[in-house]
Structure formats: C-alpha cells, structure tokens
C-alpha cells in the first residue's frame, strides 16, 4: 500500500523542510519572520519548536545579508534554506545570488560547494500590493551556476524541496503562492521524479501545453475545455526551469506537432522564448504550427484590480489552442 497523505502545497513544503532538517543536522532555515511566526505564508510553522533557534531563526530585513551569510555558512559546511519573503524583494540580494552564490564553485575551481536553497513565493493572483506578485524566474534561469525549479502540486512540493536541499548546487526554489492552499495526495515513501525532470500530467494527441508552477492548474483546465471541443491536449509540467528537461517536451511535440508554452511572466526573453527556440531547432520537421507563447504582458505587474487581465487564464490558452489548430 502506498503511504500517502492529503496535504496543501504549503503543508507539503513544511513537511518536506521538516524532513530535511531531521535527516541532516547541517540544514538551517532562516529569513524574515520565519521563526516564531513561521513565515508570512506559514511555510516554516512549528519548526522552531522542533529544532530550536540554532536551526531556524529570523534574519534582519536585509536580503543581501540573507543570501550572503548563507554563502558563508555553505563555506562552513551548512546547508541553508533561505526564505525571501516575496518575489519583489529578492532584488536587493541580486548581486549575492548571481555574482557570488552562482559563481563561487566555478571561481574556486570546485573547492567551494554551494548547497543553498533560496525559497521565493512568486507569481500573482492574490490581490496583493505592488512587488508581491512577480515572476522573476528568467533572471535566475539565465544565470550560469544556478538551478531553478518550481513545483505545481503538493507531492512535488514535498519532494522537490528535499531534493533541492540535498543538491550540492544553489537552487532558486519558486513557490506558486496563489496555489499554496491547493490540496493533493503526497506519497511519503519515495519521489516519483528527480528534481530536474519534466513530466506529462495528462496525455493528449493534438496540442502540447507545457507550463510550470501556478500555470499548471490553468493548463489542465484548458485541456478539459478543449476536450469538450474535441481537441486532445497533452499537458506537461516542466518543473525545472534550469536545466530544462527538453527530452519530455521533444517527445510530446513529435507526437502532437503543436506546442504552447505558458507562464505568468511576460513572454519577452522568457522561459517560453527559450523553449520555443529549442523546439524549433530540435523538432523542425515535426512542427505543424509555430510554437506559441502564452504569458503575462511585458508591463510592470499591474495593480490588484487589474491583475485578472494580466494573468493568462484558460481562455487565453484556448485562444492559443485555436491558433495552433488553424495551421
């Protein structure tokens, strides 16, 4: 019998971090308000009681220091899970992430390992004020030396956070904040996939929709709508944004001949741009239609009353489905 429980993404992350802290005394958790409060999204709730203030503690409100000290702690043999409170507040730490954390293994010719996880709740849809709804993944995926992943469901949340903590490389761990309360079954015995594998969530034959994080649910919704209209959609959860598991996408496109890539971030110089370019190269003779990117617009993330317009929904995905089916 499979050993499963139903958890929300938030609770699954909590359980995954707890497990990692139990398994390895070198794992530390810190960030703004993560200790007593358990973080503003309560992802680290209860960990202080179990592990004490030497394993989990509040950082001052200094993002560069959060990442910079995680680097120093890594040099000392610790594995830090550093929380950035919201996506829009990661930029004060940008140098420490892209010029320090990402490069130190290379600069030191492999002498320094950087097992640091930077957890960032990201994306919109929660009606927040400015700087609380952004999708910064392309900055990090573009940076050599970083790994970037984003779970879309509780089981992945539980396993991917543990796999990220075990990685010898730095991992930017993007948590789809509007899906934190989404529930699902979590298999507690072993992970089904590695940290950097993509997976087919729903098989189909006419069109492939590849997405990640908060857009996966939206893609599954679109697949259902399409089904009713007689179009069979294959849904891929990309899961890892650096590296990208192109093999799974290529296999799917060879079958469907049509690819839509979806995310909340603007499409200009984005994860979908990269996938479109790569698939054009690898699947040129299989494509029935150009690869279509569906995303937010290339504008500053709008005020809460306007975000519904900004965020791609199932209708916007269906518009893209119509377009690729017209070829």
């Amino acid at each position, binding site marked *: 019998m499979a050993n499963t429980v139903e958890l929300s993404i938030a609770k699954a992350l909590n359980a995954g971090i707890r497990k990692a802290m139990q398994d390895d005394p070198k794992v530390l958790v810190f960030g703004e308000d993560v200790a007593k409060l358990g973080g503003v999204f309560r992802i680290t709730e209860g960990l202080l009681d179990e592990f004490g203030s030497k394993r989990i503690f509040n950082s*001052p409100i*200094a993002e560069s*220091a959060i990442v910079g000290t995680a680097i*120093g702690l890594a040099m000392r043999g610790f594995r830090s899970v550093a929380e950035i409170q919201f996506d829009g507040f990661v930029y004060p730490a940008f140098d420490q992430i892209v010029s320090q954390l990402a490069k*130190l*293994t*290379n*600069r030191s010719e492999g002498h320094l390992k950087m097992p640091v996880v930077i957890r960032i709740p990201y994306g919109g849809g929660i009606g927040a004020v400015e700087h609380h709804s952004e999708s910064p993944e392309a900055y990090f995926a573009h940076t*050599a030396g970083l790994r970037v992943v984003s779970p879309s469901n509780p089981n992945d949340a539980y396993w991917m956070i543990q796999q990220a903590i075990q990685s010898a490389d730095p991992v930017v761990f993007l948590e789809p904040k509007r899906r934190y309360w989404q529930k699902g079954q979590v298999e507690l015995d072993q992970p089904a996939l590695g940290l950097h594998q993509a997976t087919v969530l729903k098989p189909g034959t006419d069109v492939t929709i590849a997405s990640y994080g908060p857009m996966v649910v939206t893609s599954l919704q679109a697949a259902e709508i399409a089904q009713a209209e007689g179009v069979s959609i294959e849904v891929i959860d990309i899961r890892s944004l650096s590296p990208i598991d192109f093999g799974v996408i290529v296999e799917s496109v060879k079958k469907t001949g049509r690819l839509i890539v979806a995310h909340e971030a603007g499409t200009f110089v984005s994860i979908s741009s990269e996938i479109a370019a790569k698939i054009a190269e690898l699947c040129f003779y299989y494509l029935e239609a150009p690869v279509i990117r569906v995303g937010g617009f290339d504008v500053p993330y709008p005020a809460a009353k306007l975000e519904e317009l900004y965020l791609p929904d199932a209708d916007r995905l269906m518009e893209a489905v119509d377009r690729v089916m017209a070829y």
Partner: protein
Amino acid sequence: MVQFLNENGEFAVASKEHEIYAQFIRDLRESDFLKFYRDMARIRRFDNEATALQRQGQMGLWVPAVGQEGAQIGSGHAVGPNDNIFPSYREHGVAITHGVDLMSIIKMFRGVNHGGWNPYEKKFHLYAIVLGAQTLHAAGYAMGVNFEGKVATGNPEIDEAVITYFGDGATAEGDISEALLMAATTNAPLVFFCQNNQWAISSAVETQTKVPLYRRGEGFGVPGIRVDGNDVLACYAVTKKHMDDARNGLGPYLIEALTYRIGAHTTSDDPSKYRDAEQVAYWQARDPIIRFEKFLRSQGIGQDFFDEVQAAGDQLAAEIRETTFALPEPELELIFDHVYSEPHPLIEEQRAWLRGFEESLGGHTPTDDGENKVDYGGSR
C-alpha cells in the same frame, strides 16, 4: 589612533589605553620582528615585479599594494592558525602571511583563472572583486563558527575567529553595513579590517563618509578603533587583541588602518589626474618599511640582515619572472568545469559542441588565430 612606532621608528606607548595593545608587542621576539620586515620587503619586491610584468604584457592588470605593507603584514601575522581570512583584491601581503602561493595571484591577474587556490587549505578565501560582498560571506562563516560552538571554549586549539578586509570606498556599499549588523546581532567572531588608503580609484575618502570610518560600526553595535596602518607593530597588536577577543566570544570589532595607496589604483589608472604629488610625497616619507627598518637598526640589527633580505628579493623577482614567462596557456574546455558541482545537461551539451567544433577545424583551436573565431550564432 594607536601608534607604537613614530616616523623615525622610535617605539613609544602614547597613552594608558594603548597598554592593552602594547603587551602583544612585548610578547614578540626578535625573530618575529625580522619576519615582519622580511615579509614587508618581500611583498614590496613582488609587487613591483608584478607591475613590471604587467607592463611587459604578461598580465592583463595589476593591483599594487605599495604603501600598505604595514597594515597587511602586521594584521596578517596576528591572524591565528585556525582563523579564516576573507580578503578583498589588494591583500597580497596578507596572502603571504598565510602561505598563499604568489604565483596563484599572478595567474589570476594574468587571466588564467579566477583565483585558483584552495580556500580551505590556507584558510585564505578567494579575492573578491565586487566591493563588500565578501564581508557577508565572512559574517555567515563566523555565524557558522558560533553554531559549531568553536568560540570561547577556552581551548586555543578549538576556538576560531574570522577576519575580513575591505577598503575605505567599499564601506559605502550596503553589504558592509549589512555585514556589520549581522555580525553584531549574532555576536559573530568577526573582525572587520578596513584599510583606509584614502582613495577609492579617484574618489577621496570624504566621498564615502562624513564620520571617521572606525566609528562606522557604532550604530550597528560594532565598536571600532583606528590604528596607524603604516606601523606594522601597531597593526599587529591591534589585530591580535581583537582576533583574540573574537575567539573568546567578545563579538565583532572594526579596525580602521589609516594608510595610503602610494601607487595607482591599478596599472590602468593614472593618479596624476586626481591627486597632488605633494600628498604622495608626504606619505612616501611615512613609508611603513623604511620606518620599521629604522626601528630594527635602533634595536641593533645590522646591515647583514638587510643585505640578506635584498638578495632574497632579487631571487624572488627572478623566480616570479621565470615562472610567469613559462606559464602554459589554459585548456579551452576548462570554461565548462565546475559551473555546477553536479552534472548539468546544458553544460555537457555545449562542451560536446565545442569539442566537435574544434575537431572539425582539424585540431585547430578557435582562439589561435583571428580567422577561426567561434560563431556564437544559433544555440548549441
């Protein structure tokens, strides 16, 4: 300002408060004094040789530390064998006090690699070019020392401290303020060593601060002191005291060593555009090596010793020249190594592509002449 040697190399303890530092000088033996002198002279000689090598096209850039030998050799020798050092990019003197191979510094500025020494071996971490970034790494490392309980055990074999170096200009960076704060709130065993050489490229120190730099930590809870950076003994004593204190659990401290950058910022710089020759002459008259030589002579050290140091310098310079000229070019494919600690498909794909491309040129490497530049169009 703590000073033990005046400009004429005469030893004096100016005030009672400085007694706590003076005791560390009294603990020194003649062999320690001679070591300080040898190292200052050695690094000066190396530095001048490196500038010459840069002029001859052997290095892309050189960053001279001339004038700062007292601050670097004095503080470097005060760092204990268990302690870790997080330098900026001009700390060649500190590097030799901890056995870093001078050729690895040459290689870095030649463009062979980005540092290349093993930070764990010498406990001297890689040079940091982004101003102030290393101070946060030092703070994190020192927090780790605390977590491991390797502070204030009373056992000198176990206790550790950390020291980080940075310049006057770097103090304006947010990272240094954040590092001071982090170290203060966690009571980290970390000494902040600021070499105020009075210039940050062309900007005078007044651009960076309204308050003397040794007081920069006060608001964060990090006390500080100013030391004469051209007095190797004072730099040694003050650093020794505060590293000992940090190891004993007294928390972070900020040391400002007042010194002067005699040379250019780098070999690409022309300081005559922004500062007076009189100012340089004033500080040349306060040269840390000459001052210490006067002290040693007053202690009865004879000409033989200085001759021996001179000869050792000649030999070092010859070795550095010879080794630099003989350095092989690095392998092209090294660029793909250690980007990640664990395998990464994109890196392997691009490595394989370059290998195939090179082979298609018949073993002709793309960089060995202008005609065969790598075409970066398309993705690989």
